[in-house]
Every structure is written in C-alpha cells, then in structure tokens.
C-alpha cells in the first residue's frame, strides 16, 4: 500500500483515496469519543481536558500517518521527514489557534490553561498538521491554501475545506457561550470543540463532494 501510494504524484489523488482518508479521520474522531465514553467513562462536559486530550491522542497519529503518505515531492522527502514536519507543525498550529481563540475572547485565566492547551492541540491536528505533513514549510502552498483560498485539485481541497470548516465551526460554536442557560456545556471549550468537530466533518463532506465532482468533471472533459 505504501509503495503504491508513493508512486502516485500527490496532486493526482483519486476520489477514493480522499474518501478513505476522510473516513479514517472521521472514524478516528468517533473512536476517540467512543473510547472516552466507554473505556475511560469520561465525556467532554465533565472532563473536557481529559476527553479532548484522548480524542487528540487518537486523531493526531491517524492524521499524521495518513497525510504524510501524500507529501509533496516524495522523491525529495522521506515518509519520516513528513511525519517530523507534522510533529513540528503541531505546536505551531496549536499556538496560532490558541492565540486566535484568546483574541476572540476565550478565557485567559490560569484555571483554563490546560483546557486551552488540549483544545488547541486538537484544533491544530484538525487544521494545521495535515498541511504541514503534505507541504512542509513551503510558503507558496500555504499561501495558496490558507490565505487566498484557491485550492487546486482534490488534495488541496482535502486540506483546505476541513481546516476552514473546523475554524468556522469553532467560531459559530462560541456563540452560545455567553447565554445564561447555565448549562455545563456552555463552558469553554466544550461547545467550541463540538462546533469545530461539526465544522470539520462538514468540511470533509464538502471536500469529498468536490473531489467527486472534480474527477467527474475531468472525465467529462476527457470524453
């Protein structure tokens, strides 16, 4: 499987592979929830830090291992190097996510520090790490995907849409926080995490749809 994947030029990723990766990432999230619920019997509401960390611990390896397979210029960059890039991208992405959240009004107190860290690690694995694995530190690619939002091809869609989905979902997830319903899930970062994950899943669906359309369109053109 590995060799097979390496032979393919990454920009030409088949819609089946997109499907596979998205299903794996989605499943990893689901497994994370399942393990938290049934093995450790914790959930996001009563132990946000632990649950987020657990979900991250399952999601992150899946993401980093899967996306490293689609690294750019595989002849120059080994699989291990891609993984190392992903590992390096993780804290950077976490920092950026955390700073963004703080600017938007996430609680800055010390008692929220652990939660913020685990949330931003998860956010980083959803948004930042995949691109770090695939493109490394190539500025133009980052620029294309995140600043201009002009993805080319299925691979770019696969990186761009779920990441934007997660961020936008988290943004919307913050809206119920100030309401006075006094529900435990209104606490930081519970509803934001739910929003982010929902947005991530929506982004994955969108990316998959686009990938299908893309290949379909190409086939049509070829015909």
């Amino acid at each position, binding site marked *: 499987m590995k060799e097979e994947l390496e032979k393919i030029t990454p920009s030409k990723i088949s819609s089946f592979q997109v499907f596979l990766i998205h299903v794996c990432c989605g499943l990893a999230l689901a497994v994370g929830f399942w393990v938290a619920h049934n093995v450790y019997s914790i959930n996001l509401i009563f132990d946000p830090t632990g649950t987020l960390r657990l979900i991250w611990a399952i999601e992150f390896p899946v993401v980093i291992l899967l996306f490293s397979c689609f690294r750019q210029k595989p002849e120059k960059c080994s699989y291990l190097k891609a993984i190392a890039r992903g590992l390096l991208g993780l804290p950077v992405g976490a920092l950026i996510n955390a700073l963004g959240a703080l600017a938007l009004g996430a*609680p*800055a*107190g*010390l*008692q929220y520090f652990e939660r913020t860290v685990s949330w931003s690690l998860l956010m980083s694995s959803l948004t930042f790490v995949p691109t770090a694995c695939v493109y490394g530190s190539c500025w133009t690619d980052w620029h294309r995907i995140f*600043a*201009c939002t002009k993805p080319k091809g299925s691979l770019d869609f696969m990186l761009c849409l779920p990441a934007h989905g997660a961020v936008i979902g988290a943004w919307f997830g913050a809206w119920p926080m100030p309401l*006075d319903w006094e529900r435990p899930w209104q606490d930081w970062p519970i509803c934001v995490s739910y929003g982010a994950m929902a947005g991530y899943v929506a982004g994955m669906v969108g990316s998959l749809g686009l990938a299908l359309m893309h290949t379909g369109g190409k086939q049509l053109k070829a015909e």
Partner: protein
Amino acid sequence: MWGWWRLGKWTVLVMFLHIIAVLIFTKGFLLTRTELPHSSHCSDLSQSPCHSSSYCWTKPVVDRLIIIVLDALRFDFVAPSSFFEQKQPWMDRLKVLHRMTLVNPSSAKIFKAIADPPTTSLQRLKGLTTGALPTFIDVGNSFGAPAIVEDNFIKQLIQNGKRVVVMGDDTWTQLFPNNFNKSYPYPSFNVKDLNTVDNGCIEHLLPSLHQQDWDVLIAHFLGMDHAGHIYGVDSTPMIEKLEQYNAVLEKVIEEIQNQSGPGKLHENSLLLVMGDHGQTLNGDHGGGSPEEVETSIFAMSFKNLPTLPSEFVSSSCEPSKNICISSIHQLDFAVTVSSLLGVPFPFGSIGRVNPELYALAVGTWKLDDNKTWNNQDELKLEEWLQNYVNVICINSWQVKRYVDVYSASSVIGFSSEDLFHISDLYAKAKENQLNLSFDKNESSNTSLPVLKRQIVAYFEFLSYVAELARSKWTEFDLKLMVTGIGIMLFSIYCHILAIRKLNKSYVVSLPLSRDSGISFGLMLASFTVLMRASSLLSNSYILKEGKVANFLLATTCIVTLRFSFMMNKLLLEAIIFLLLIFICRIAIEIGLYKQAATSQFMSASSSWVLGISLSESMWIYIVEIVSILALIILGYFLYNAISSYCRGIAKCAMMGTILSYLLIALYWISESNILDLPHFLKGMGKTYIPRTIYSIGLGQILLMTFVPLFSKEEASSYKGSLYVKMISILSTCSSTIIILQGKQGAFVALGFLLAGYCMMKLQGIEQHSVGGAAKITILDPLPILQWSLLAVCLFFATGHWCAFDGLRYGAAFIGFDEFVLVPQAILLTIDTFGFSHIFSVFGLPLFVQMEHNSLLSINLFWIFMVYGLITATTATATIVCVAIQRRHLMVWGLFAPKFVFDVVGLILTDLLIFVASIYYF
C-alpha cells in the same frame, strides 16, 4: 455653505428622523404610571363599609414620630451577625439596636425592609411617602428632584395639621417644597463629602427632641451612602460612619426614654430607624439585586405591648439570641405610618398596614385601662384584632377605591380579568366584614377565628393587588412604539438611499471606475452589523455586549490579517491591530468583573486571574509611572505632528494641548503619594488644574471655530489640511477626556491612535493588487465598521456599561467640589461618551482615501453616513428588541437602560456627525 448643504442635508434629515422616532418611541415605551391628582380626605371614610368612628380615618396611636433615615443602610448593618454565614467587619456596629431588641422584644423590633427597584434615593423616598410603585422614567429626574404631585404621606400630615420637621438630605425639601414647618437641608450631591449632611443632622436632631413644635421629625443621614460610593462597604470610613451612627442613636434613644414617662414629651412616641435602600459591597445602588433591595427598619415604641398571634408574624428568629427579624415591604410603609398617626392614607398607596409594625405601637393608648397584660390575654388580643380588622378594612377599601379610579381614568390599566378577580376578592372580604358587624351586634364576644379569617381575606386581596401592580405597572403604548420603530426603519432607508447616491456620484466622478457592485468588505460588514443587531435580542448578549463587540471586531481583524497575508503586505500593522484587540479584550473583562459585582444578573465569578502578587504600593507606583509615560509618548507624537504639519494659529492651539498634558501629569503626581506635597498645594491642584485644562480646551475650540472664518489658509493638499484639522480637534478633545477618564485615559488614547493608524493602513487591503500600489476604486465600509466596533469596545474597556450604576459619577467631580447641575452633567457626558462617540466621530477622516478635493468631500460624507448608519442600525435593533422584550423580567433592569444609553448615543452621534461635517468641510 451651499456646497455643504448639497451633501449635508442628508445628515440633517436623518438626524431629525432619529430624534422624532426616538421621542415617539420613548413616549410609548417609557410611559410612567399615570399619576392621579386625587388625594384622600377625612370625610371620604363615610363611603367605606368599615366601622367608622369619631376619628379621621383610624384612631391615632402615636402622638409623635421620629424617623431617622440612614441612606444606603444595608440589611446586614442592622441585623445581628449571627444571621449570616460569616461575620464581616461592618456587621454588629449598630449595637444599640441589638440591645434594644433584646431588652424589650415586644416594643422594639428589627425588620428586613424590601424596597422595589429602582433603588435610588429619590425613587425610594417617593415610594416610601406615596406607598406606590415608582416607575422607570423618574430615574432620569434623580439629578434635579422634582416635587411630588401625587398624594403622599407628608401631604396628608400637613393637611391634617401635623407639624413636620426635616433635617439632612435636601432631597426632601425638593420633593416636598414648602411643606415643612422647619427644615434644615444640606446639599446631597457632593459625593466626596462624608460629613456635612450628617453633622448638620446631629447638630439639630438632639435639641429638636426637647422641643414641642413638631409631631413628625425626619432626619436623613447621608454619610453612609457617600462612604459606600467612594470607599466601598468594607472600609474604615464606612465603619467609622457606623460607629458614629451608633453613638447618635444611643443618645437619641436615651433622650426619648428619659422623656417617655406619663405626661412627658415623648409619652406616646415611636422611633423608626430605617434605610431607603441597600448598597452593594462596592457601594453602588440603583438596581434590583438583593443587596441593593434589602434594607432595614428598626422600630421602637417605649411601652410594653401584647404579642401577636403567630399567623401574622413573618419573622425568622435567632434562637440563641432571642432576636426576631420580620420582613416588611417598603410599599407598606406609608399606609402603616399613616394609620399609626391617624391621618388618611395616601390616595395612590397600594400597600397594606403591616400588622407587626402596627402592633409595636398600637398598644400605647390602652395601657391605662390595664396594666397587666398577662391576665385576660385573650380578651386584649381580641380587642387588638378587632381594631386591626377595622384598620385593614379601611386599608382595603382605600386600595380598592384607588384601583377603581385608576382603571376608570387610565386607558390601558389592568385587564378586565384582573379587575374582576380584584372585585371578587374584595367582595368576599367585604361580605365577611358585614357578617362581622352583625355578629358584633348580637354578641360582643366575637370569636378569634372569625377575626383571623377576616384578616386573611383582606390580606389576600391586598397582596393580590400589590402583586398585580408589580407585574403590570408598565403601560406600553404599542401604537406609539410601532410608529417610532416605523420612523426609525424609514430613517435607515433614507440613510441607505443617501449612501447609494453618494456612492454613485463617487463612482461617476472617478475616471477609472470599474463597477463591481458588492465587495467582500461590504458583505462582511453587513453580516457583522446584522450579527450584532440580532445579538441584542438576548439579555445575555446585552450583558456581555463588550465581549460580543470584541468578538466581532477580532473576527473582522482576523479576516483583515488573512488578507494581509494574502497580499504579503502590512503584516506588522495587522498583527499590532490584533494585539491591541487582545489588550482591549482584557480591559473589557476587567470592566465586566466590576460590573458583575454590582449587577443583579451576573455572577461575580471572574474568568481571569492575575497571577501577580506584587505588594500593593508597588503596583500603584508602576501604574502611575506607566500612565504618565503613556501621556509623554502621546505628547511626543503630538509634538512631532505639530512641528511637521501645522503652522500659525493651529500650531498655537495645539501647543495648548501639550500644556494640558503637562498639567495632567502634574495633576496625577499631585493626586498620588509619590511626592509629599504640602496640603494646600494639593488642594489647589485638585481644583485648579482640571479647571485650567477645561478652559484651555474650550479656548482651543473657540480658536478653531472662529479663526478659519477670518483667514483662509491655503494648504498644500486637501487631505493634508483635513488631517491637520483632525489632529487639532482630536488633541483638543483628548486632554479633557483623558483627565476625566483617569489614569487609563492616556493608554486608551494611545491605543486608539495606534489602532486607527493600523486600520487606516489596512483599509481596502483586499483590493490592493499584489505587489502593486494601492488602487482603490470602491469605497470599503469594513474599516468604518471596525472603527465603530472599536469605539463600542472602548466604551466597555474604559469601565463603563449600559446601566445607571455604570456611570462614573466620580468623574463629574474632577475639579469641582460642589454639585452644579450643568457643568457636572456635561462632564459626566464627556466621560461616558468621550472615547466611544466624540473621539471616534472626529477621528473618522482617517479613512478618507482621496486626494482630490471634490471627491474628498464626497468620500468624507460617505464615511460619516456609513458610520451613522452602523450606529443607527444598532440603535434600531435595540429599540426593536426592547419592544419585543417589553414583558421580559429584566426589562427595567437591563433592556431599558440599554435602550436609554443607545438612544442617547445615537442622537449624540448624529449631532457630532453634523458638527464634524461642518467643521471638516
């Protein structure tokens, strides 16, 4: 002038539409309870079904009444500390009251008195004397107390020949002008003065106790309220005040006790020591939180009395100490005291005669017949109850009469269902009463249970009326409200029309225009404005409005940052901007924390913790030095700007600002304890430095208004001259605003400046061609939206919030010691709206992009109109939301203050835009 009118007519039109809409809506929304001009008379009683006697309404029980009002008396100042979980330093200070309740539990009693919000002194005095529910609109009158026109307790006293003496707070003489036989008023609005009113009170109180020329004495002490406002509850001045009051009360009680023997002056006296409202730990009041609403009444008569049957006692007792505390509504005060003195009850009162307070005094006229209460207890009790039934019967009849008259004279009074229920309850009670009378004729020995049932029936009626009045006493005129909203929406339509027109003329006159219609900036701006507008529908978002505005501002800023990444340009500016927003956010949270301490709707848990445990004095020094440093930086920027751009008069004017900055620094130094300045010098500095700064500012404004009329300066470029104008007016305003805002002012001004610079640089960034020069063809509303959101954020970050206790009254007294309405109101307005409205409107030319003259004025007007539109949209949303939520639990506590602040802000913005457009044109 004609040139101005061509563009400026729209601002005038919109302003007038706004004013009309707001006036109409306010008339419908902030409608007060209709005040009825009727008053009660002795002869009215013949219409009542109750047992009438030779007395006026009720048998006078008390000859002389001494009311000592301690302003802002918290319940825990009076109640023993054993009632609370924790003993605090301010508890148990009024020891004499505890001692009295312990010694004679049947003649002295502590009550927990529950006030109805709004808990400002004026409203409470009005409520206490009329026995009615005060309405929201009167809050605004609190600064110039108008006379009470409704029937009230004081008026009844005067009508019935009682002589009243009042001393202390001059609000009393303003509320009841020319009503008192003697008055010793002292000015009440100088918050910093803890002693004048109190010393005046003490000076006259004790001698008056020996005099015979009064029947009712009112002494209103104010020091505690002021001590709370300035130092908070947990402070030495507050405790000193409490100790002082304790000593005064001790003397008063001793004096009265000495004269309470038969035939002496105070044979039949009742002493009431009461608060008009409570206060929070910060010393604020006005809202409806338990701390503000709960105050206390201590009542003491100087005779031994029967104990009440337990059914009518609402007290909670402290077994170990034998002190019982009952609770009473302030609503009941007027009628209870009237019944004790035997004067007609105020016409509009909806309270009931409180049985416990009544029982405290009521035995006094019977004592001669029977000196041993223990014998024939039951008979005495029955007699007491019979008497009380009669009183409560009169009480119910009076309330029923008021309800009837009120619903006849008011268009939208109570609903017919409720009226029917009221009549039903009353009829039932009355029927019982008739039975009672028959019983009385047949056998003189009415059984106790019948009497008790009767009392219960009346209580049911009275409490139902009070409850109904509480829940429904705001009459909204829906027609007017809808009209107001309609005009508001029309004004927005005009606004948009005007902006489109300006846009068109702008695009037409631009040679290289490419009309692309809707830009991304426009979309984002509209989306954000709509988001903010819809957020006002929820009370939670209004409470945290600062955070919401900050969230939206940060969102737009992140979008801008993304654009700047896209263009690979101005990254530093975008990041600095984001950083400023982050700092602003922290400041907003500190403000929220302060608000939570006083607000009834917010829990006081803070989400941020400063992990700094520096010693306090060290902290203060740092803050002082850093704020002065910020001021110096500001002055340096200004100096640079002056020396490079300005010439002639403008330069002269702006040098004045630098002088003002120096004076502010001097003022801060003199205020702090860094330098040990001699006392008189400090006093001089405190009053004269601020006044000098105000007058310099005023002089600068005059200079800038009149000089351009005589000399036409030819500037090198129109944009340059616009900037010079802007810098001069901003610097002029800044000195006054900074001194009013205190030490944070310099930081905020600096931050505002920096943020404005970043926004100016960043504007239209998404239209920049990559690498090329800026070619802006479309007017971009995004930076203006950001500017307006920043203004909102700064309003909250500088420690304001949309409630009346959020006004920083202290700012009104910078440079002034006495209260004079006009200058204080102006200073308070400048403090409240300084950064968020004045600064931001005059700073708008920052976003002018055009160099060319004719286009520049179009551009300027376009910016003003867009800014006005954003403010108007938010205000309209507030108005609509207030209308929708008019039956909300928090309508008076939260929505109405928000409405008032927004509406005032809107009109102010319109006015400022009008002035600024003339100034800049």
